[in-house]
Structure formats: structure tokens, C-alpha cells
């Protein structure tokens, strides 16, 4: 239990710093000084002490419980990932539930922006889940979905990134789509204000920001562990900073795609990744 609490705290604190760094990179690319890198953490803390108000249009028990579920699924991801090094299939399930929660968080507020984001969450689920489904290629290569087995495989055969480069690119696109101001971030595109988060205030917003930080840490951790094996703490830090830097650089220089373009682009990338990886595995 203590192990879980400590890992969740690390995921939240380090995830916040990574998102703050991501914001800083975006700002520097756009020739702004940008906020300090602890700004994301300070924002999250701030919301925990703000007054929580509830919109009249909210469908009440659901509106609150969906935020609790959002927190719960990312804490579950910490348990499956860094704590127990469990199955990637469970991680896929967590991600699928996350997309449903994103959808329902938008619809439960009753706000038109939330509802628009809710519809877009379904669109994005149809494109992001195929991206995550590429983990079956990892299964074909390694023979197991367990993260601990994947690490053991890499200790013997070397890093998976050299054996499955297309899978790494596809999973990187998935991470990119979850980063703030992503070209694929249609559920939180600025044309729908903050998407499904628009009508969540105070404590509820604090929990959403907590979940975002944990999810960013988990995605970075998952990518590094799947493709580079069990790294030292210093290499994990460097890797996570590199992922945040790259996504920040891409997000600062690309516009947010419209939903149709975003979905088609992601599905195309998933298709190329899956077919290309199969060809590389079985033909060459």
C-alpha cells in the first residue's frame, strides 16, 4: 500500500514538472519567457483550495463521480505500471476506460462545449485505440504482454526500439495526442474552450489536473520501459524530459487539426505502423 501511495505521489509530482517543462518549451519556441516549470503543479494545488461550484445543468451524481473515476483509473495505471509491472493489455483497458470517462465528463456537465468535446472523445477513441492496439505487435515479438517479461526480453535481446521502430513511432503519436495543445488534441481544442474540463471547477478541476499529471508520467514511463527496458533513474528522467521536449516542440509549431483530419491522420499512422511492422517481422 505504501509503495502505491509513494509511486502515485512521484507520478503526480514528476508528471506536473514534466508538463510544466512541456509548457516552457512551447513558450520558448514561441519567443515567450513562459511560466516557471512548477506552474502546472502550483495550478493543480491552487484548484484544490478554490471554491467548488456546480453548474445547474450538471447531471449531479455523475458529474462528481466521473472525476473520481478519472483519478481512480490513473491510479490503477500506476499500480499496473511502475508498481507491479503488469500486463500491457490491462493498460490498454485503462486507456479504453479513460476515453469513456473523457466522453462522459463532457456530457455530464450539460455545457455545449462539454457536449461537443464528448462527441469528439468518441471520434478520438476510434483513432487512438487503434494506435494503442499496436501493442499486439509487441506481443508477437516478445511472446508476452507483461511489462516485466518485456523488460527481461530486452535484457537478453537489446532494446525493442531497434527491432520495432514503427511501433515506437505509433506509440509516440499516441503520447503526442495526449499532450497539451497537441495537433491531435481535438477533445480539448481551444475552439471548445477546455473541452470536457470547461465546466469542472475548484476541487474537481484539481483532481482532473492531478490525473493529467499522473497520465503524462505513466505514458512517458510506459514508452521508455517498453522500448528501452529497465533504465536507471537518471536515464528515465532524461528520457521523460526528452519526450516532453519533443512533444512541446511539435505542439508549438503545429496547428490543432480539425476532428476529421485528426482521426484520419491517426488511423493512417496506425495502419502504416501495423502493416509496416508485420512486413518487417515476417518478410525481412
Amino acid at each position, binding site marked *: 500500500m505504501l*509503495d502505491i501511495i*509513494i*509511486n502515485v*505521489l*512521484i507520478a503526480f*509530482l*514528476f508528471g506536473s*514538472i514534466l508538463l510544466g517543462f512541456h509548457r516552457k518549451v512551447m513558450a520558448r519556441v514561441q519567443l515567450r*519567457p*513562459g*511560466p*516557471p*516549470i*512548477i506552474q502546472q*503543479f*502550483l495550478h493543480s494545488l491552487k484548484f484544490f483550495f478554490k471554491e467548488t461550484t456546480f453548474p445547474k445543468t450538471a447531471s449531479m451524481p455523475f458529474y462528481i463521480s466521473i472525476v473520481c473515476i478519472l483519478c481512480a483509473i490513473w491510479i490503477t495505471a500506476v499500480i499496473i505500471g511502475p508498481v507491479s509491472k503488469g500486463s500491457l493489455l490491462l493498460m490498454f483497458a485503462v486507456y479504453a476506460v479513460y476515453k469513456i470517462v473523457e466522453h462522459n465528463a463532457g456530457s455530464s456537465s450539460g455545457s455545449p462545449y462539454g457536449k461537443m468535446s464528448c462527441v469528439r472523445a468518441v471520434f478520438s477513441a476510434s483513432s487512438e485505440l487503434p494506435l494503442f492496439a499496436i501493442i499486439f505487435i509487441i506481443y508477437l515479438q516478445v511472446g508476452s504482454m507483461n511489462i516485466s517479461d518485456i523488460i527481461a526480453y530486452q535484457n537478453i535481446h537489446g532494446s525493442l526500439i531497434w527491432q520495432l521502430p514503427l511501433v515506437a513511432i505509433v506509440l509516440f503519436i499516441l503520447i503526442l495526442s495526449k499532450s497539451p495543445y497537441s495537433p491531435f488534441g481535438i477533445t480539448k481544442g481551444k475552439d471548445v474552450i477546455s473541452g470536457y474540463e470547461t465546466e469542472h471547477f475548484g476541487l474537481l478541476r484539481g483532481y482532473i489536473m492531478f490525473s493529467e499529471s499522473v497520465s503524462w508520467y505513466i505514458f512517458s514511463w510506459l514508452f521508455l520501459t517498453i522500448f528501452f527496458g529497465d533504465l536507471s*533513474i537518471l536515464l528515465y528522467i532524461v528520457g521523460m524530459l526528452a519526450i516532453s521536449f519533443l512533444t512541446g516542440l511539435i505542439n508549438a509549431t503545429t496547428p490543432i487539426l480539425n476532428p476529421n483530419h485528426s482521426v484520419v491522420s491517426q488511423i493512417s499512422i496506425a495502419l502504416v505502423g501495423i502493416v509496416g511492422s508485420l512486413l518487417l517481422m515476417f518478410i525481412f
Partner: protein
Amino acid sequence: MNEIIYLIYLLTFIIGSILGLLFSYKQHNEPFIYNKSDILVLIIAILAWILLIDSDILSSIVNPIISISIGLFLIGFVLGMRPGYGRYETLIGLIISIAIYGVKYFLL
């Protein structure tokens, strides 16, 4: 056990960043005008990076975990200052501490 140590490192860095932010806002009320390095901040940055990179330097006095924590606290203090302040000091501190580390271990 390792996770607790990482958590301590993270917390010291974050507390250092918050204190650095408060300190720099107190020191600089004016709009951002920056034309010289702050010597005190530069000394803190050099000390911080030395403590982090060469964490065994105080091993006869304190545990390396404590010296790394102090180093991270001070790095957070300098790096977390008001946007625009502390960045050159961080960079110069890093370069000087790497040079000192290099001289100590490869030349002496």
C-alpha cells in the same frame, strides 16, 4: 526504499522552486530588465550543481542522499526563479561544476 528517496528528491526540488519563485518576486518588483548576473545566485547555482554532480564531496560529513537533496533544493531555488532570472546562472553553474568535477577526477 528507492522510491522514498526519489520522492524526497522531488519534494526538495519543488520546495526549492517555490521558495526561489517567492524570493525572486520579492527581489525584482520591476518589469523584466536583465543585463547582469546576480553573484549570490551564481554562487548558489555553482554550489548546487557541485553537490549534485559530485555527491560524494561531503561524504565524510553527511550522507550523499542529504547532499543530493540540498543540491536539488538549491538547483530548484535558482531554476524556479521568476521567468527570465536564474537561467544563465544555472547554465554557468552547471558548466563550472562539470569543469571542477573533470579536473578533480581526470587530472588530479
